[in-house]
């Protein structure tokens, strides 16, 4: 699986959004667009990403822009993996 597919799967299970996850594209907005993505879900999402990709996410690494779109989230993961 690619990073994009892995992140899609994490979104699907963490937010429990079922098949809606399949329609998400790179420019699909996340924050403000997916009602399930409240603060608790954001925290769960970061934790799940950290554990799945075995990366360390620091507080300073993330901001609202990270969750702006599905593409920005995937980009963030790719950058962390490249570190």
């Amino acid at each position, binding site marked *: 699986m690619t990073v994009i597919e892995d992140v899609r799967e994490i979104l699907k299970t*963490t937010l*429990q959004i079922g098949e809606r996850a399949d329609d998400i594209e790179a420019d699909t907005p996340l924050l403000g667009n997916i009602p399930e993505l409240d603060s608790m879900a954001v925290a769960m999402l970061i934790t799940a990403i950290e554990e799945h990709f075995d990366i360390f996410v620091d*507080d300073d690494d993330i901001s609202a822009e990270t969750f702006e779109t599905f593409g920005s989230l995937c980009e963030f993961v790719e950058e962390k993996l490249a570190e």
Partner: protein
Amino acid sequence: MMWKLYPASEFPNFQDQWQSLNKDRGNSPLLDVKFILPLMDKFSSGSEKIVLLGDPEKPEIMAVIAPTAKGVWASFQPSNAPLGLWLSRKKALDIPAVKSLIKQLPGMAIALGITQQDPLFMTRPDTEKSVASLDYITTAHIDFPEKFDDYWALRSKNLRHNMKRQRNFLTKNHIETRLEIYSRGEQMKQAMMDYGKIESSGWKGQIESAVTQGDRQSQFYEQMLSAFSNSGESLVLRYYYNENLVATDLCLLRDKILYILKTTYDETIKGTSPAHIMRFEYYQTALASKLLKRVEFYGPLKDWHKKWTNEARVIFHSNIYRNNFIALAHKITKLIG
């Protein structure tokens, strides 16, 4: 740090360990196995877990927790339990240990709430990025001096006058009063029947939150009070105006501390407060017999508490998060509005 998790149904197998921790932490009857077993029997949904840190024979921490939302767990907290079911050998909350528990819970757990903790038994943690320390309620207690008269002399003139006025009202209207105490196991069924009758006829009955005969709440109190009666620690205060039962308190009495768990009174009574007269009389008698030194209310502080005592403390919740992301996530989602 390895935690062990067991289904809640296995609690009876761990009652000695629980009891030993409770004894180390203040020996409150509200966390005694005689309280917890009926509580779990009547209110457990089956999703709760017993969690245990350290040697299973002599654990450092033991708790009963349950999932409350996706990714969130909390100490088991039915409304009839004044305190959350969390006990630890040390008074300070071990935050790293709690975080390690969160990681070992089934599913992706992100937070654990340790609810309704008494500062007498647990030191309140400071709020930081991954810990939220929250006020729950302010609860009152009375620490009595040796003599009732010394206590009463310190109460306001208004309260003293008011209680005297009520006494005079009863005398003038030829109402004879009588305090009766139930403490034997076989009396608890009747105690709960009478309690339910009074409470369901009042405002709680109208909003269907009253204890009613045979319901789960009633069964819990009957079972729990019967269990404590074996050690002489159950106490049901019952107060009569002539032949009518007009007020009753369900209590536990341990180490000369009276824990008032639930109270009800006949709301049709005008001109007097039978529950207050009942307690006045009990405090007076119990202090004279050296049976009482403190009263605990474990309920939200009301104006009437302030008339009977100047002492109160804050019961708190502690929410522990798996990592610091929750504070960050709050900030991020707030930006979106």
